[in-house]
């Protein structure tokens, strides 16, 4: 029984970290209508920034990593957020004038380039060897005895990530409802209108991109510090597409929807691990899961284009993915 509850905690942590990704994506797509396909790239930038800052340099079989600063983890988390936000702005800068699918192509390519750089610059990132032994925050203090109750490390990390999720949710929800958010919504509906009202829409789009990328970077850092080890194959475009599926299924424009959609996707991915391997196609489960996510995405778009918890304002504005 103990093992199952441990597993549940780990699954919840994964769901929370992915929810942070979905919140960032919802700011891009749900609020601003920007087609960002670089999310896995921002996640990777965050994970690697924090890792390089908090681990010592190391030698490896395929190449030596000469950068490693052994700074406190808090600095790593903050730096991960900032550096990922800067990457977001950097990618958005040349593509601001672009619309819809052009932006999709540029961001998708950019994310692959980030992965290419991580794979090749072993002096900084250890390349394909990956980085191991990433420190966990406050790891020495656990297990902690609290009046007869043993609190394990995973439970602590779950609490930490829940706190970060609640804070991020509150922040992004508030931003979305603030005057700033209303300008983003106006850009989503028709960029000419806020421009005619004297808003500098490129600046707003850059801010939206930076904020969403920043939280993805934070999610990456939280991922790295929980799972000890990272390598470039963790940041494939299929991660971006899974987050997309989560936002669309949950309902674009709704931050609760982003979290619900993520829980659904993570649920499919994790719960199917409990199926016995000897059922037909049992060994193909990892691939069947992704097929299921793809099919769910198409079915939701067909029957419920606004998603499970679609944003009312979006639906009224005719942007609920119904058509043009």
């Amino acid at each position, binding site marked *: 029984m103990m093992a199952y509850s441990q597993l549940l905690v780990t699954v919840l942590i994964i769901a929370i970290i992915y929810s942070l990704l979905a919140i960032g994506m919802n700011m891009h797509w749900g609020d601003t209508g920007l087609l960002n396909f670089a999310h896995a790239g921002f996640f990777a930038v965050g994970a690697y920034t924090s890792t390089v800052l908090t681990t010592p340099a190391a030698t490896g079989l395929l190449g030596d990593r000469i950068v490693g600063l052994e700074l406190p983890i808090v600095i790593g988390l903050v730096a991960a957020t900032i550096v990922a936000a800067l990457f977001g702005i950097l990618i958005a800068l040349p593509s601001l004038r672009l619309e819809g699918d052009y932006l999709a192509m540029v961001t998708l*390519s950019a994310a692959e380039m980030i992965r290419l750089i991580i794979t090749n610059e072993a002096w900084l990132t250890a390349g394909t060897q990956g980085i191991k032994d990433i420190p966990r925050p406050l790891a020495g203090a656990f297990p902690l005895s609290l009046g007869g109750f043993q609190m394990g490390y995973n439970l602590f990390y779950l609490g930490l990530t829940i706190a970060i999720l609640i804070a991020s949710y509150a922040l992004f929800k508030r931003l979305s409802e603030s005057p700033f958010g209303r300008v983003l919504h106006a850009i989503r509906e028709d960029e000419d209108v806020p421009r005619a009202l004297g808003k500098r829409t490129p600046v707003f789009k850059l801010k939206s991109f930076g904020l969403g990328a920043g939280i993805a970077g934070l999610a990456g850092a939280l991922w790295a510090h929980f799972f000890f080890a990272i390598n470039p194959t963790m940041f494939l475009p*299929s991660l971006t597409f899974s987050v997309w*599926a989560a936002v669309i299924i949950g309902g674009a424009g709704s931050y609760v929807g982003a979290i619900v959609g993520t829980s659904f996707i993570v649920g499919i991915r994790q719960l199917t691990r409990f199926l016995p391997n000897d059922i037909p196609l049992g060994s193909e489960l990892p*691939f*069947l899961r992704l*097929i299921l996510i*793809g099919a769910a995405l198409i079915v939701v778009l067909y029957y419920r284009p606004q998603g499970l918890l679609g944003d009312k304002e979006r639906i009224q504005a005719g942007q609920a993915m*119904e058509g043009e």
Partner: protein
Amino acid sequence: MATFDPQFIWFGLVSGSLIALGALGLTLIFGILDFINIAYGEYMAFGAFVAFGLNTQANMPMVVAGIGGVLGAGVLAIALDKVVFEKFRNRSAIVLLVVSIGLSFILRNSIRIIWGSGTKRFDIPIEQAPTYFGISILPDQVAIIILSFGVLALTFVLLRKTDIGIAMRAASDDTDLAQIRGVNTERLVLYVWLVGGLIAGIAGVMLGIDSVLRPTMGFLTLIPIFAAVILGGIGDPVGAVVGGYAIGLLQELSVVVIPSEYKPLIGLLVLVVGLLTRPDGLFGEATR
């Protein structure tokens, strides 16, 4: 980095032929249906793997297997239109794009389940490349270039000289107007999927012959294909082909100035520079 070698130009022509084909197919579909089909790379991979199955599992000669793979990709494109894309015909371009993401998930992982996720090779002899004028040239590569020239020429004859092709170009320019003038656009859509699918199959099979087969082979080729499509002006077939060769040559020649691991970076660079300076493509023929 490497010093310049005429060999790079030859490699550039080979990969340019592959990119040009993919870009032509993607841009044709875009012209009529107005959306970027992210699953297009998977059509390529599917064609290649069907050919692989016929070649290694059914022991057919490579030529026969290749034709089978190409037909397979054509049938797949039409089937997916009937089963999926047709249901979303009146939706926005963004919805179609997201639907194609879902499809690319489904296709890529189906390929993994059917043929396994490892690297595969066609059952063709590995030969020592003969050298002409200091350039080593494989017969396979010659076949790729000749075949792609042939396909490109055929497609242009189709677009310029046949009723279907002229209707395609009309509909690509203005779908409503073409419809009013009596073009059966629904049937046209089927032809476009067929042509686009066949071209994807050819590109995929040749990509497999040129290197190896992987379930992700098509998806990874999408970036240079995107770059070629945008460079040529989205929806413009001539531009896509010119863009494809330009990207292929630039990629292979780039090793003179940057480390070869960063070859794929050229696609992104061209994409960004092209979008900033000539958003309507080289010839300003973009359909939007």
